[in-house]
């Protein structure tokens, strides 16, 4: 069952002179197990859009249906987890463990089952065991991020939404986060990433949406995206395009170093044979 967004429009400050239309007639559907990127400039409506997926915002018109339920029902929040930008800012509890338990316990999960969930989430996020009883505020920035991620994973969402997850991350943290997302995706969780720099993540995506002025301006596969966009492409993709122009017959729908390497070696072998 998917997240269905049907004819959704949304305005801030409705009925006042400061009314601002943030979303205009959005129609899209996100299937279970999909890996989706939502791109667009700041103010294009992408953050407003995902706040509709778990009912934080209610559409002015239209509706959002998650697995057959209206998105504003409380239960939907267990299905759709959102990891906001700089999630380390949301920690508040006395210990790491308690903070991670906050989400599931809000939905009435208790005792052994709660413990199992919390430990599982902490392990999945890669939080070291000796930190479980520490105050989250004594951890390093990177560790705090992992705790916050665990806090969302502990709700065991079917859909994991992330708002600008790479902002301010160094390469190491970026790679380990992307690896985690890949793992979750392979376990059947839908991953939706909202970002103004989606080029770095194209190689992971099943589908790409691009938002512009509150509308969806592009919907499609990453391969189609690179032919239809004027926004920056991954360096690797641009390189492959340049090679094609010089008459080297490589595919140019390639986004990662690994794929580019394989593609170049393949073409080179072909050329050697000839």
């Amino acid at each position, binding site marked *: 069952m998917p997240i269905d967004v049907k004819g959704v429009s949304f305005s801030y400050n409705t009925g006042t002179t400061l009314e601002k239309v943030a979303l205009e007639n959005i129609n899209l559907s996100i299937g279970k197990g999909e890996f989706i990127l939502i791109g667009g400039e700041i103010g294009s409506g992408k953050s407003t859009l995902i706040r509709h997926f778990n009912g934080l915002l209610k559409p002015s018109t239209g509706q959002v249906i998650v697995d057959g339920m209206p998105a504003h029902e409380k239960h939907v929040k267990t299905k759709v987890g959102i990891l906001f930008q700089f999630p380390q800012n949301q920690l508040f509890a006395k210990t790491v463990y308690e903070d991670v338990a906050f989400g599931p316990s809000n939905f009435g999960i208790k005792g052994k089952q709660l413990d199992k969930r919390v430990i599982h989430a902490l392990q999945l996020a890669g939080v070291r065991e000796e930190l479980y009883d520490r105050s989250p505020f004594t951890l390093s920035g990177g560790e705090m991020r992992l705790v916050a991620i665990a806090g969302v994973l502990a709700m065991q969402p079917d859909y994991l939404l992330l708002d600008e997850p790479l902002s301010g991350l160094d390469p190491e943290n970026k790679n380990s986060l992307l690896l985690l997302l890949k793992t979750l995706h392979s376990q059947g969780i839908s991953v939706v990433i909202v970002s103004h720099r989606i080029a770095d993540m194209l190689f992971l995506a099943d589908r790409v949406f691009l938002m512009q002025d509150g509308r969806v301006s592009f919907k499609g596969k990453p391969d189609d995206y690179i032919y239809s966009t004027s926004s920056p492409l991954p360096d690797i993709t641009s390189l492959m395009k*340049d090679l094609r122009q010089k008459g080297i017959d490589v595919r140019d729908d390639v986004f990662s*170093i690994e794929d580019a*390497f394989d593609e170049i070696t393949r073409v080179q072998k072909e050329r050697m044979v000839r």
Partner: protein
Amino acid sequence: MIEITTLNHRYPGGKLSLDSVDLHIEKGEFVVIAGRNGSGKSTLVRHMNALLLPSSGSVKVKGYCTAKNANLREIRRTVGMVFQNPDSQFVGMTVEEDIAFGLENTGTPPERVRQLVDEILELMELSDYKKYTPRSLSGGQRQMIAIAGVLVMEPECMVFDEITSMLDPTSRKEILATIHHINKKGTTVVHVTHMLEEAVGADRLIVMDSGKIVLEGSPDDVFTHPDIIQKHGMELPPVAELSRRLYDSGIIKKKIVFSRDELVEELCRSM
């Protein structure tokens, strides 16, 4: 310009965050300092204008020791600093007020402040926004304003502390171009980042980890040690990484290539 000798720094109750760092920055140089989060790079640059003071060792700016309170004003006028998060470095309520802030602090007469602010707004093509609140602008524009607010004081050296890390690729390119431009006009530049590709075109690249300098040299030199780079949590730029793998499997002859055009050329030659 800046002389750092066996600098140690310890935050209260913490472990050593800078461990005997020696670094000399020449006038007019473009130095990039890279390293993973928590490597000590931000701590290091905060010593360059006396926001932090050495636990031991010394930092001298144009010969002025940062530990002496009397040198503070001269040091901060010499070394300007732009920070990562534009929101929490704005002091003024409008763009022009924010840019004026530093000049007001140094006791510049109002008419002169007005003139200098208008000039810098013009120069950085921000004039249209001068009455806006900085927060209503895009991330890239906000960093441009933050840069203008420092540049207007005409410091001899500018330190950019991870100012690109929250930007989209297009704004990042613009900001980098601006930084290079500022350097070409003769200002010494220290640029902190965790993206090694931002070091392309710099005079010197310094990689830090655990409070120490672990690699130092021209970017070309540093990039020829991919394993050390990786060990310290950094990553080669994608094009360079690809070229390294292509070299390893004998497809290209040149050990490492940074620019896309050059790699295309290299591949055309060898395929």
